[in-house]
């Protein structure tokens, strides 16, 4: 009872743990950094290296942009469920714009065919529908891509900090930091993230040479990728490729902070819903009924 029993850490344990922590901190602080925390000149050097590498691989001059988020901009997206005909033009325009792998196939947009009788019901949705002509009788279509959540589960689970939300609200990935653990894919309730199981194959003549470091630049094998609202176009003031290609005009894109923008008009005048609202992911991708 009078025996002295030390219960806390010993001096030796404390010293060795402190040394390990210090070594770890020094290693991470001096090692490579994520694109968003690198100093400007190092980013420029990295971007130049990427341009040279991709130009050599594609046999054509490639420009890689590192355009930062615009001041006073938060991107939002609205999709008119009463207009979408399920033609998948958006899926393939996205692939062409964003240099996804053609084999194995990577699509950032999945168009889910749903039965009118069941309503929005993911359990019975069919992304593989084949039809001679769309819209098919008795069906409607819900295209799903990254919902660019404000409260994004994917960025929280990333063990390396390779994915984060930019100031303009776009959730991006630094492919050099992604270790391919796919935790983010498990966390995403929308199936919006896609993994490169094999070396992406992209015929050089079909590559889009206007790239962005956080978007459509060439990806290595073993990393996750996702929709970035066509960051290379959006930060240049242009509409994403899917918006421009949609033959039904179902896709709307703009600045949520601008009261004159199309997405704000939709939010204020239309019946709007978000997918899986109960999960509190707070998407910036809205679905609405235009008529």
């Amino acid at each position, binding site marked *: 009872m009078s025996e002295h029993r030390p219960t806390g850490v010993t001096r030796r344990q404390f010293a060795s743990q402190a040394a390990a922590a210090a070594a770890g901190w020094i290693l991470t602080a001096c090692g490579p950094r994520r694109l968003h925390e690198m100093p400007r000149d190092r980013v420029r050097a990295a971007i130049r290296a990427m341009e040279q590498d991709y130009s050599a691989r594609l046999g054509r001059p490639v420009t890689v942009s590192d355009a930062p988020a615009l001041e006073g901009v938060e991107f939002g997206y609205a999709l008119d469920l009463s207009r979408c005909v399920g033609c998948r033009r958006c899926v393939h325009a996205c692939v062409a714009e964003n240099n996804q792998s053609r084999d194995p196939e990577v699509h950032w947009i999945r168009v889910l065919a749903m039965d009118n009788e069941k309503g929005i019901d993911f359990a019975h949705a069919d992304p593989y529908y084949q039809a001679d002509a769309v819209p098919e009788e008795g069906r409607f279509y819900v295209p799903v891509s990254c919902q660019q959540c404000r409260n994004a589960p994917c960025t929280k689970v990333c063990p390396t900090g390779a994915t984060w939300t930019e100031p303009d609200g776009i959730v991006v990935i630094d492919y050099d930091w992604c270790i391919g653990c796919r935790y983010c894919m498990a966390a995403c309730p929308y199936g919006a993230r896609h993994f490169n199981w094999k070396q992406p194959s992209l015929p050089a003549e079909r590559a889009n040479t206007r790239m962005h470091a956080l978007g459509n630049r060439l990806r290595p094998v073993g990393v996750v990728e996702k929709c970035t609202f066509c960051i290379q176009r959006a930060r240049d003031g242009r509409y994403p490729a899917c918006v421009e290609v949609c033959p039904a005009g179902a896709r*709307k894109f703009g600045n949520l902070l601008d009261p004159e923008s199309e997405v704000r008009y939709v939010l204020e005048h239309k019946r709007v819903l978000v997918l899986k609202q109960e999960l509190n992911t707070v998407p910036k991708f809205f679905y609405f009924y235009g008529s």
Partner: protein
Amino acid sequence: MSGRNAEWRMQNAECQMQNAGCGLHAAGAATGPLRARAAGFARGAAVAALTALTACSPGEHYARTHLPASGTRKLAPKAAAVVERVEVPPPPITEGLFPCSGCHASMPVNRSRRPLTEMHGDIELDHDEQHRWCLDCHDAEDRDVLHLAGGERVPFEESYRLCGQCHGEKLRDWRAGVHGRRTGQWNGHKGYLLCAHCHEPHRPRFRPIRPEPAPLRPAAPGRRPE
């Protein structure tokens, strides 16, 4: 419940209902048992109005909680936008047919409703055809323009005004950039299309189109890809 209290509630409810766009002016003047009933009704109405005011869609909720609350917030498109002319690409008129007056100037005007046999036989009218015919939209005197119901002539480039006479809600959304396809810049110059670029005016229903190929099913061990 004292009468005074009931009256206060009633006025309160009335006020809210007027806000909601439906006045209940008679309720305040009611007396006796009618007044008690009216008070009950008013209480119900107040609850309903409050529910209507507080319940909102995810979009509104998002706008309320995440976007800057502002006096600049706009509830309707500006009045000026309604008369503004929209820049559009040339209207989709069959090659070689325009100007229409090239043929029609030398022809007598026949206003009788009839099937067209000599020309324009390819036009199938499936657009409220029970009630309308060519000259309800095309101008009889000047064939190179259209006319509104009131007689004002509008060029084909402004045909959206003609369509908007019936489809006013679509025209409003189109002007706001929400109905129809947009190209260009989200914060700058936007490319608009005329109604007729997507909807053939004589049979405007959107035609079914062939979809692009479906994604491949993921290959799994023991399962052959289809």
